[in-house]
């Protein structure tokens, strides 16, 4: 009996001790915390934080610290200093090559392909899948999209006898010739279309030009294709021919001078005196976030019915006749997020990032508020809650030929700025030989990439 009592008391003591050890073990486990820095503010940050709350609810024990109003420059500085967040968000994908190439964002190839990974192709649209990769490395997941499409003034085109937007670059030239009018002193009064680098500040005209002609930014050898892809020279020659024929009566220098003056007199970009709103220009390239302004005048919120006098339509870019299969497409970029170098909790960071990228509630709320379609395929084509006039944006976003160009580590997407400089120099008549200039440009871009690799 005594032995039994002794054994029972020993067993009880051992159990208590074991449970204490176990409890202490739980208490000592590292807290699972993931820090997310984003550039969002106000209502957008609220939506973002609501999604983060959902993630925390679905993952007991996981705490996500969300900090808004932090741009990538600040994030990069912190990452460099070793006290960056686990996840950082960039508003666009132009800098992805830099974030990936410099190692600021970690490679996600293994995580994406792993057991808890994502089937990118069935989850996101084609443009998003392609534009979140750099140098064959995926180091980002896409968020919402930014769509660059073709805007046309329906009333002005109707007056010229057109009921549909131009489909090809040939059409665009013909339309413009009909739509362009001149003042008595010979200056341009209204323009059909202005293929001019720097017409409006936020236009990346050279990128749109390349998309129209299906020109590639990089070749199979991973080098710049500005020289090797003849479509670039073709695109620039088309631009020059367009300026000469539409604005110079066949004389390029005359057209260039007239356009310089016309562009100098452009109305403000962010209000009712925008050239597209005043009818000074009939057709133009622009971003999806300009559409609400064109619709309402100076109110940037999405309206069911347009209240501005402007009667406009949205379509894909006109394309060169040998690139007809790309008609309907545009340039589509994405917000991106990545796991920072130095993150001590990659496993949990991946859980959070994957959940944010695939959260359909967040995507829907974001789209409803900003008219910025998510990259998620699940809800994409023509959502019912957006006004009819805006829906062509979704067609452009989901066109399989819509894309951002391949990004490489060129610092702050310097290849775009360099190409834009060349376009400006060419349109001003300062570059005589486009093939040679494109060749020099390609060499310069290759040098930058080589230095950064």
């Amino acid at each position, binding site marked *: 009996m005594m032995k039994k009592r002794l054994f029972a008391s020993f067993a009880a003591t051992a159990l208590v001790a074991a449970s204490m050890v176990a409890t202490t073990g739980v208490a000592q486990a590292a807290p699972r915390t993931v820090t997310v820095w984003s550039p969002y503010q106000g209502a957008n940050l609220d939506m973002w934080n609501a999604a983060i709350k959902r993630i925390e609810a679905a993952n007991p024990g996981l705490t996500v610290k969300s900090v808004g109003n932090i741009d990538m420059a600040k994030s990069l500085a912190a990452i*460099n200093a070793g006290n960056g967040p686990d996840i950082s968000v960039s508003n666009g994908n132009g800098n992805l090559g830099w974030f990936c190439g*410099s*190692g600021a964002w970690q490679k996600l190839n293994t995580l994406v392909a792993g057991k808890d990974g994502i089937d990118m192709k069935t989850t996101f649209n084609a443009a998003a899948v392609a534009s979140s990769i750099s140098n064959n490395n995926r180091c980002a997941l896409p968020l919402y999209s930014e769509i660059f499409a073709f805007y046309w003034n329906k009333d002005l085109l109707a007056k010229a006898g057109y009921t549909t937007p131009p489909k090809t670059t040939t059409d665009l030239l013909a339309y413009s010739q009909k739509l362009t009018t001149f003042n008595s002193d010979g200056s341009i009064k209204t323009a059909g279309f202005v293929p001019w680098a*720097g017409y409006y500040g936020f236009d990346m005209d050279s990128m749109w030009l390349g998309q129209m002609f299906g020109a590639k930014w990089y070749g199979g050898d991973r080098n710049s294709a500005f020289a090797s892809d003849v479509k670039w020279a073709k695109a620039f020659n088309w631009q020059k021919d367009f300026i000469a024929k539409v604005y110079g009566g066949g004389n390029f220098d005359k057209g260039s001078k007239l356009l310089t003056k016309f562009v100098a*007199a452009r109305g403000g970009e962010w209000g009712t005196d925008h050239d597209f709103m005043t009818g000074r220009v009939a057709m133009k390239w622009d971003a999806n976030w300009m559409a609400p302004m064109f619709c309402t005048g100076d109110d940037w919120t999405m309206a069911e019915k347009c209240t501005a006098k402007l009667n406009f339509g949205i379509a894909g870019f006109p394309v060169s006749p040998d690139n007809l299969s790309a008609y309907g497409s545009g340039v589509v970029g994405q917000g991106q997020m990545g796991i920072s170098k130095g993150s001590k909790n990659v496993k949990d960071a991946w859980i959070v990032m994957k959940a944010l990228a695939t959260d359909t509630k967040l995507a829907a709320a974001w789209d409803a508020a900003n008219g910025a379609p998510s990259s998620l395929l699940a809800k994409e084509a023509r959502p019912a809650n957006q006004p009819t006039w805006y829906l062509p944006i979704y067609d452009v976003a989901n066109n399989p030929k819509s894309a951002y160009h391949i990004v490489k580590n*060129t610092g702050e997407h310097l290849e775009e700025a360099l190409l834009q*400089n060349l376009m400006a120099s060419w349109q001003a008549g300062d570059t005589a030989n486009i093939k040679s200039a494109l060749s020099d440009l390609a060499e310069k871009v290759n*040098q930058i990439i080589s*230095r950064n690799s």
Partner: protein
Amino acid sequence: MSQARVIASSPFKKKGELAPPRRKLKTPWLFIFLCMSPWLFGIIFFTAYPMISSFYQSFTKFNLIESPKWVGLENFHRMFFEDSDFWQALKNTVWISVISIPLRIAFAMFTAWVLTKPKRGRNIYRTIFFLPSMVPAVAATMAFTYIFNPAYGPINRMLEAIGIKEPPFWFLDPKWSKWGLILLGLWGIGDTMIIFLAGLLDVPTSLYEAASLEGASGWQSFRYITLPLMTPVIFFSTVTGVIGSFQYFTQAYVASGQVNDYSHSMYFYATHIYFSAFRAYEMGYASALAWVLLVITLLCTLVILKTQKRWVHYPNGSLFK
């Protein structure tokens, strides 16, 4: 030293009493150090350390994310033999220095001379001429890109009104954009003008009176009295002008952004440093550029200092013997 003299020089001692031996005072090093510490802190952490750090970085490849990698003289080789933007930026910078410094000096001296003339309301005129130099560079540049706009700017309207059929496109034309910046600089000449005005007012009027009695013309008075006596001011303005023009940035950066200067006609050396550091994220290369800029500026300043003996006239002898 005699005893009497020691006593005489000690006002607190009675006559005939010997002064006690002087105690050797301790230098209050701690107090001196404490007084100097704000300056010392500033010079060590905000000048010396960044300079040493950037000197080291100029021999490295450093992208802000990865640790700097030693590349020896590669950055300097690239600068001189591979980087066409470096030469473009240097060319533009030299152009603006060579054209703007003499123009600024001449214009400042002329304006100052004009301001010595009015008998009434002198201070009002001086204030009016000085005011533009107080306008922030960004605001002034934005205003200039507006008034020089070829389509609606008042300048071209005026030029057209006086019969110039095709006035320049100013900031929109690579051939004219730098002239727009020169005019902007001349408009804000107030700070230099004030120094010239002080110099002109410092010329003794007796010299002009004597010259007048000798029958000197206005030009001769200027050539043989005013100009020589103004050479120290001209020298000072030249040195500060060279240093300033090699660091020319704000106006060019703002104007370039306003008109989308894709042709790089307003791309200056400081802009190249900025773009290399904060667009290309090549901190090592940007540091190398900055050190070369320092050497260029130093050489130019030394050349001016060396030549000043030949043309700068100090009434009381040279400051730099």
